[in-house]
């Protein structure tokens, strides 16, 4: 009999304890409500916790950084280019009590509140800036390979604000908005995950890129032809120079030699009147000897000197 009573009491105690004890993990925080009314401080440390069984209820919330992903929407920039902006944000439940009170829909409800705040902050920031400002972060000087590009290509146009500052702008306005409506939420960061051209713009961009490449190809081709012409021109010039210089030098050498030879001849043949006469005679003889060949008819007059020799020798 007493044994049965003890067993029954133990069972009841166990049931009460199991309703009174609960575990909060490292990544959780919780508030306790009693008949729907929050009681006590929010529980933000992990471990084994107590509550009144049956009448108190535990509401758990995540303590970690949570995700928010923006709508992928086509937004116009200040320079009227439609771009697809895909932003993401990190947020956390900073005040579970406030969060419980202001977000009856729980996390899902909070996400839709965040949608309103963050999407509109993004939209208005994008609309305030030109496309280039959203894309670029700094005014760095790009590295370009010299050979391939003209000075005006491969350059980056200057920007004033830049991606990072626009991002901070959005973050600041989103933080202000969430703080002002007391959602119990803290926004930690917002980033542009993807920014791309809208479908319509993309075709135009592709066409522009193609025409840019065609321009570059054309320039390469004409550069090649120009350089080729230059080299061939150089070749022609060098050729003329080499040939004419060689001609000049050769003729100078020949001329000097001719002059020297003439001088030598003159000195020999022109030394006296007698030498001149003798030279004339010799040259005549030489020339005479050189001009006679088997086709020559030699007509000798008996009046000629040759025959006079014959006659005189015969006499």
């Amino acid at each position, binding site marked *: 009999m007493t044994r049965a009573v003890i067993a029954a009491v133990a069972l009841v105690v166990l049931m009460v304890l199991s309703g009174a004890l609960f575990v909060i*993990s490292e990544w959780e925080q919780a508030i306790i409500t009693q008949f729907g009314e929050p009681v006590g401080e929010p529980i933000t440390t992990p471990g084994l916790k107590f509550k009144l069984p049956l009448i108190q209820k535990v509401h758990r919330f995540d303590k970690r950084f949570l995700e928010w992903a923006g709508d992928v929407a086509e937004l116009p920039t200040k320079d009227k280019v439609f771009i697809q902006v895909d932003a993401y944000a990190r947020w956390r439940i900073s005040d579970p009590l406030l969060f419980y009170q202001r977000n009856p829909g729980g996390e899902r409800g909070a996400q839709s509140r965040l949608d309103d705040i963050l999407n509109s902050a993004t939209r208005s920031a994008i609309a305030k800036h030109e496309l280039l400002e959203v894309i670029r*972060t700094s005014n760095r000087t790009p590295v370009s390979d010299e050979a391939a590009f003209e000075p005006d290509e491969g350059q980056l146009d200057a920007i004033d604000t830049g991606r990072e500052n626009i991002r901070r702008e959005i973050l600041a306005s989103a933080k202000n908005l969430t703080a002002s409506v007391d959602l119990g939420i803290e926004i930690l960061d917002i980033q542009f995950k993807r920014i791309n*051209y809208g479908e319509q713009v993309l075709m135009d961009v592709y066409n522009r890129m*193609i025409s840019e490449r065609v321009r*570059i190809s054309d320039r390469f081709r004409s*550069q090649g032809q120009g350089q080729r012409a230059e080299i061939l021109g150089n070749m022609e010039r060098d050729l003329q120079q080499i040939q004419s210089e060689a001609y000049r030098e050769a003729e100078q050498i020949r001329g000097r030699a001719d002059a020297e030879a003439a001088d*030598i001849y003159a000195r020999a043949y022109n030394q006296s009147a*007698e030498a001149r006469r003798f030279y004339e005679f010799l040259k005549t*003889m030489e020339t005479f000897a050189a001009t006679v060949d088997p086709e020559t008819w030699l007509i000798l*007059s008996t009046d000629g000197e040759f025959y006079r020799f014959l006659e005189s020798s015969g006499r």
Partner: protein
Amino acid sequence: MPADRGPRTLLNYSRPPRLPQLPLAGIRVALLVVVGLVLISSGVYTVDPEEEAVVLRFGRYVRTTEPGLHFKIPLGVESVIKVPVERQLKQEFGFRTERVAVRSQKGRRGFENESLMLTGDLNTVVVEWVVQYRVVDSKKYLFRVRNVESTFRDVTEAVMRAVVGDRTVNEVLTVGRQEIEDLVKQDLQVLCDQYETGLRVEQVVLQDVNPPDPVKPSFNQVNQAEQERERLVNEAQSEYNKVIPRARGEALQAIQQAEGYALNRVNRAQGDAARFESLLAEYTKAPEVTRKRIYLETMSQILPKAGRKVVLDGDLDGVLPLLNLEGGAVAPRSEEP
């Protein structure tokens, strides 16, 4: 009883006739042993070499244990979460490796949104890349961020686009790859720390970086044009190299020929002059005789060489009648062998 008289089946035989009356103490011991075994088996856990284990007691972190065999308080008091801290993890962007093999296959379909991005000169480019990372702080990894992997992917995409957005399309496609990898790794680590993910970025590796498909042919054309430029220049250069050295050689040849001519001319002049000097010396001694001698010597050389010799009497008036014979006289002679 009728039931007992039924056929004696195997089942009937195998049924133990009656449980023997065991002592109560024996049952208790057996029960304790079973309970003990259950407790021990639920209190033992092993940690693989590439892992470490985070132990929670009633949800609160108490300790981290190294690889090996360990004990925890059973019955749900302590729970264990294993984290592969030594394993290198990898995320692919713009593609997924579909089949890991010697030649891995890449799937790109459906990931164009990940890889298409804008460059700083407002062009578009398709970038595929891989990030290798590790969990270095398992407490942060487990407790600070929900969905660490998807957070990590978001952060990586944002950082990559910010870096590419600050570069020209040419830099992204060619010269700037290493710089992009380094910068993305650095910026990515900063954000991972800021978000308390407990991750360390080991490596960012750009894979294929291409212009978008519709634009690709025109980029190829640029390469072709560049090749063509090289080709034209090389051809012209080779033409130059073919012509000019040869011309130089020919120029030298012409000059040497002139030098030869000069030597020849001067030497001959000197020779002629010397000969003349010698003859002149003889001539001066006996001018008349020498003249005659030379004349006669010359004639004796000439006479045998001439084909026809005609001797005319000095009293004859003209030679013309004789010369008319040429046609008749020369022709028969030419018929001789």
